[in-house]
């Protein structure tokens, strides 16, 4: 199986559109006949990532690579970055404002969910420059 690569831009100014990239990725994986569990794990990881980009970083990009072993996800933004990654990974910790919480997000579960649903999770962030999250979901478990 060759590597299939997909690229999506996540606009940062429109919360109502957050999730469109994840939806497109989900449909693409479905067409490829990938197993429903893998698809759901990828969908949750990209969707939480997309929401984070819109809430915290004024948008970003998602790159997806699918080969015979795994779906590899690379999420990048040029937002403010995360000063304390360990703290940000803690369940329930959030810096989201009240208006975001009123929309049903900002419960401090985004990054923990992304880690929980993927097989590999690596977050690098530089304050003032942005954040990169690389994740892998294995196809055969």
């Amino acid at each position: 199986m060759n590597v299939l690569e997909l690229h999506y831009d996540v606009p940062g100014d429109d919360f109502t559109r957050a999730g469109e990239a994840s939806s497109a990725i989900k449909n693409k994986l479905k067409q490829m006949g990938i197993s429903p569990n893998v698809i759901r794990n990828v969908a949750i990881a990209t969707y939480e990532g997309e929401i984070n980009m819109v809430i915290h970083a004024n948008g970003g990009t998602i790159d997806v690579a699918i080969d015979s072993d795994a779906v590899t996800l690379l999420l990048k933004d040029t937002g403010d970055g995360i000063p304390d990654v360990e703290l940000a990974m803690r369940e329930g910790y959030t810096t989201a404002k009240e208006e975001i919480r009123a929309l049903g997000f900002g419960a401090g579960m985004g990054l923990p969910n992304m880690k929980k649903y993927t097989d590999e999770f690596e977050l690098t962030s530089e304050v003032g420059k942005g954040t990169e999250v690389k994740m892998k979901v294995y196809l055969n478990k």
Partner: protein
Amino acid sequence: MVMKIMTIGDIVKLLECEVLCCADRLDSEVHTACGSDMMSDVLAFVKDQAVLLTGLLNPQVVRTAEMMDIICIVFVRGKKPDTAVVELAAQKNIAILSTGNRMFEACGRLYESGLRGGLSANTSGGDNAEGGS
């Protein structure tokens, strides 16, 4: 106890719902339920053929349902989302119901009729009526 399998149509009857879209899905089976206004909590919950009960009305409710393969959303307290949200749900083939019941009452009625929550690991709790297993 044998877990009862109900359909979206059963939920319409039990909660006296108005069906806002995907009336053709009333025969679809619902195996589990989740009641929450925090979408991140819903995303921490994985179970097939689920129904989501919520008081939140924005399009991200439908997006969240789509990601989790949730087949039906019940809006509680008589709330109805705007047409754009209903249209998005119709595109995704997710049934949209609206009930006059409050969250607690709606979850209680479904639970009483045999519907159970799914696996809900590591949710942050709060005052959401998370369907525990």
